[in-house]
């Protein structure tokens, strides 16, 4: 009897263990792969502020920025629609993690050239051994045109440096802060024989919240920490819409300038008395260097 039972166990065991074969796993547990966290923003800008994104190597991004006049200009100026401030720019990924941007803009009759370099030092990854993305950028702006005829070469130049620290918290929510240093050619300070340029510190804060997979609401606030009360802090509300090869950004902002030294430290209108304007940014990317697959 006992022997019969054991023989039964013998066969059952074989059958049972073999039956498990149907739900097999040949690869075993996966080695945990670590990836960089990409796509924290739809494009390289939040609204005016630079975002955590960087143009990929070999990719050219054509940027057009446009701001109407402020709404409180009233009906004679069609609530700002009669005026236009425009920047045309090109961005290019020189190598991985480094891009250059150059642009031409007009602001209130001043014509500007600007350029900056943006470098990604660290990129957030999926196992959080790098919890944040860290970006450094620095650039210059040069005033062209007659509005500053009396000025010397240096008088026409402004410079800025910025660090951006940010994190993509969820698929939908990304937040960044951007401590910024800048000089301002508009406000030379003369002490004795020395003339130097007013320096400012600011802290940009930007975020985006996706509302659909292809659109998001963006907020941006850039308090000037060394503000002596002569300028207002830039605040913008924007919306990103991605369609195929384009990203459209629509916004309401109290800033008129289109490069860092202007929109951070030369914002002279405020939300309180509807000194805000409608604007849009357009981004179109082209692949210049095809990667080897």
């Amino acid at each position, binding site marked *: 009897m*006992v022997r019969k039972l*054991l*023989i039964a*166990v*013998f*066969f059952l*065991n*074989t059958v049972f*263990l*073999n039956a498990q*074969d149907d739900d*097999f*796993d*040949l*690869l075993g547990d*996966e080695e945990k*792969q670590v*990836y960089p*966290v*990409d*796509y924290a923003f739809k494009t390289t800008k939040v609204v005016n502020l630079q975002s955590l994104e960087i143009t*990929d190597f*070999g*990719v050219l991004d054509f940027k057009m920025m446009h701001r109407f006049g402020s709404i409180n200009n009233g009906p004679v100026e069609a609530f700002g629609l009669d005026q236009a401030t425009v920047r045309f720019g090109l961005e290019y990924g020189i190598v991985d993690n480094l891009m250059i941007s150059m642009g031409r803009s007009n602001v209130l009759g001043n014509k500007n050239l600007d350029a900056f370099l943006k470098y990604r030092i660290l990129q957030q990854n*999926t196992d959080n051994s790098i919890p944040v993305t860290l970006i450094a950028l620095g650039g210059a702006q040069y005033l062209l045109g007659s509005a500053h005829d009396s000025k010397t070469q240096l008088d026409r130049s402004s410079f800025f440096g910025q660090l951006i620290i940010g994190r993509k918290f969820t*698929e939908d929510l990304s937040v960044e802060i951007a401590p910024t240093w800048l000089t301002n050619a508009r406000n030379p300070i003369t002490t004795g024989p020395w003339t130097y340029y007013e320096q400012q510190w600011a802290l940009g804060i930007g975020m985006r919240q996706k509302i659909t*997979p*292809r659109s998001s609401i963006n907020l941006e606030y850039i308090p000037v920490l060394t503000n002596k009360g002569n300028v207002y802090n830039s605040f913008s509300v924007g919306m990103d819409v991605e*369609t*195929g*090869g384009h990203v459209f950004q629509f916004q309401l902002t109290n800033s008129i300038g289109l490069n860092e030294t202007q929109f951070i430290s030369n914002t002279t209108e405020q939300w309180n008395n509807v000194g805000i304007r409608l604007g849009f940014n357009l981004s179109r*990317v082209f*692949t210049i260097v*095809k*990667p080897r*697959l």
Partner: protein
Amino acid sequence: MKKYSIILLMASIFFVGAASSQVYKSTDAHIRFVSKTDFEEFEAINHQPTIAFTNKGKVQFRVPVNSFEFEKKLMQTHFQENYMESSKYPNADFKGSVIEPENFKLKDGEQEVKVSGVMKMHGVEKEISATGTIQKNKNEVVMSGNFDVLLSDYKIAIPKNNINQISNRITIHFEAKLEPKKSK
């Protein structure tokens, strides 16, 4: 009697062990997919899949979606972020077995096979089958083949704007070199 039973039990496990199959694991594997419409054709390549195969014809694929590379970076962005949602569904998996020829046994030389099983992609499981060849040369096994998937089967929607650029039917090609997996 007790001693006897333990011996028998161990013997039964030993027999099961002896009946288990040799597993081959990929050392070099590539997956490429092609989308072709009347207006646009593009492809993406993945060099990071792992593939396992047994001499009795069981097959398993694991493909990290993050590792697909495109010629156009923007396409890669959209593929990862909007279509495959790779941060939510990091892998595409397939488990199946050779159904033709019946009672498949791996042997030297080339064999035409048909494989059937379940593919899990974008969080959706779906029965598929593929044809391919398996070639065994001493200790090395080379396999290749292709199959089609419909994006709509995996709840991957193509927006109206892109319906001319992206095909709902995607052809997937795979090739891999495999070597016997050493038992632990």
